[in-house]
């Protein structure tokens, strides 16, 4: 009797170790496959440059003088050697504002995604792992949130609770959580029945431990892909909300808000619209390239 138990436990250990080893070499394979995709690499480099630039901005841009202060005499100047991208309607240097706006957008965007993932993981893993009534309840709840078109819900929340960055983050993550819950739930359901989970249970691991240690790491693939794409989408949404005045408030710069300000002058000074727009496109575009590249790299069917 004890002999068979011992054998079973070491089988279970072996299975768990196999799963862990599989994960480490999986990462290497995924990275190698990702590298083959030139566009995705380009996206990665681009976003890296932007993140570095955004981080480094305070080093050579002073918030007060460059970003906020208005210099009426310098207003509405086209690109020049002093102001590489020109000045806006209040005489502020567009390039400085762009870089500063990058910080705000990226920070907000990543925070929203982080909350979305954590919330989605909690709900999705619970629903997927426990199944039954709990699953049903959570999914009905999710359905309710999904029934309200995203933009409208975000607008209502921000409008009601007030225009601040935390509220903005709340509104956007509320809209994002249902999506991640769905994804994580299906991954969990798929993984639940696999052998290494049986093995872990035999080792005596409890529910939450199993979920955290074994299921989540293996479900990370689709999550990371969706998260990357979601950051792109969120940054665009932040710009949209700021455009109609409900996102990031002036004088804090934000790409969408800059576009909104530029509207009055756009016919005579079209360059005012170009730069913020291109900034958004580059950010969202590179993130999308990375996300797609990750998706292809993770897809076993695409490996030769």
């Amino acid at each position, binding site marked *: 009797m004890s002999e068979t138990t011992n054998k079973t436990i070491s089988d279970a250990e072996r299975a768990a170790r196999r799963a862990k080893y599989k994960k480490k070499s999986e990462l290497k394979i995924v990275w190698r496959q990702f590298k083959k995709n030139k566009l995705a690499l380009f996206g990665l480099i681009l976003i890296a440059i932007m993140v570095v630039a955004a981080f480094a901005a305070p080093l050579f841009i002073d918030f007060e003088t460059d970003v906020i202060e208005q210099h009426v005499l310098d207003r509405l100047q086209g690109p020049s050697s002093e102001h590489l991208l020109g000045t806006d309607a209040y005489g502020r240097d567009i390039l400085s504002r762009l870089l500063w706006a990058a910080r705000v957008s990226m920070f907000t965007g990543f925070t929203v995604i982080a909350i979305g993932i954590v919330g989605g993981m909690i709900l999705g893993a619970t629903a997927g792992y426990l199944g039954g009534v709990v699953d049903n309840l959570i999914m009905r709840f999710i359905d309710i949130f999904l029934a309200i078109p995203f933009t409208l819900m975000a607008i209502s929340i921000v409008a009601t609770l007030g225009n601040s960055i935390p509220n903005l983050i709340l509104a956007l993550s509320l809209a994002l959580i249902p999506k991640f819950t769905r994804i994580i739930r299906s991954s969990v359901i798929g993984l639940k029945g696999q052998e290494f989970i049986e093995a872990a249970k035999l080792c005596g691991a409890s529910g939450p431990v199993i979920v955290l240690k074994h299921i989540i790491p293996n479900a990370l693939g689709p999550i990371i892909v969706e998260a990357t794409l979601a950051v792109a989408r969120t940054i665009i949404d932040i710009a*949209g909300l700021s*455009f109609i005045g409900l996102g990031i408030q002036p004088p804090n710069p934000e790409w969408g808000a800059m576009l909104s300000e530029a509207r009055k002058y756009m016919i005579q000074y079209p360059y005012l619209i170009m730069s913020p727009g291109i900034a958004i496109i580059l950010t969202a575009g590179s993130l999308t390239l990375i996300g797609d590249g990750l998706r292809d790299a993770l897809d076993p069917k695409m490996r030769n």
Partner: protein
Amino acid sequence: MLIPVLLGVSIIIYSIMSLTPGDAATLMLGDAASAESVAKLRAELGLDGGFVERYVRWLTGVLTGDFGISYKSRNPVFMEVFQRFPNTVKLALTAIAISSIFGVLFGILSAVKQYTLIDNIVVAGTLLLSSVPDFWLGLMMILLFAVKLKWLPLSGTDHWYNFIMPGIAAASHYLANTIRMTRTSMLDVIRADYVRTARAKGCAERTVIFQHALRNALLPVVTLIGVNMGWQLGGTVITEQVFAIPGMGSLMIQSIRQKDTPVVLGALVFVALLSSLINLATDVLYAYIDPRIKSQYVKAK
């Protein structure tokens, strides 16, 4: 199944709106108003009582078609919302038509011509479309087509061509995801065994693609288009602002700024209801066109 969801939606929407700081009656009458007149107005507007009481009152109203009165204009909310409805619908329908029709066409084209220049162009275009904010696209289109080339009007809603630019702008994101899904679906299906069987039977390539492959590939696309329709209804808000279209979206934003809660509530519920109905219709349609799902229901007979 639909009812509990809608109920839940109404609760959530109502809860969100009731978090509005400030008292509506005071806002309407101004600070100088006496306490009595404020209390009287509050009773009139149905603002007294606890949360549940107010919610039930509001809900019964909604179910009988009474969405309440606008704080600002004192008109029935239903009227205000309904007045704006046609414009939003025209915009949303244009956008859906553009995103669905062109989405499917380009998706098929790209999949059938995989690895060629056309495929690469479509994929690049799709990437661009999904990275571009729809309002920026709208602004650029205005600059190019209305100001520079003078082909299309700047604003207004009288003619069908007024809706071309807004339609394209609103459709952009959904066009991208429709192309993507159609392309992926087609690519999967083209590699399927039953497509090989069709060729082995001697079918012409055109039959293989447009009958055997497409019929299967379009199934998930139908679901996507249904979902898009629901989202599109709410997604016209920003586009309406860019092109100054007096639709439900701009009504909502206006009312938010004016703290005219009943109108906001009314518009929200209206859109949520519509989008749920559309989702339901999509599910029904899907069950009809996929024999595997259909037989689940037919067997139950």
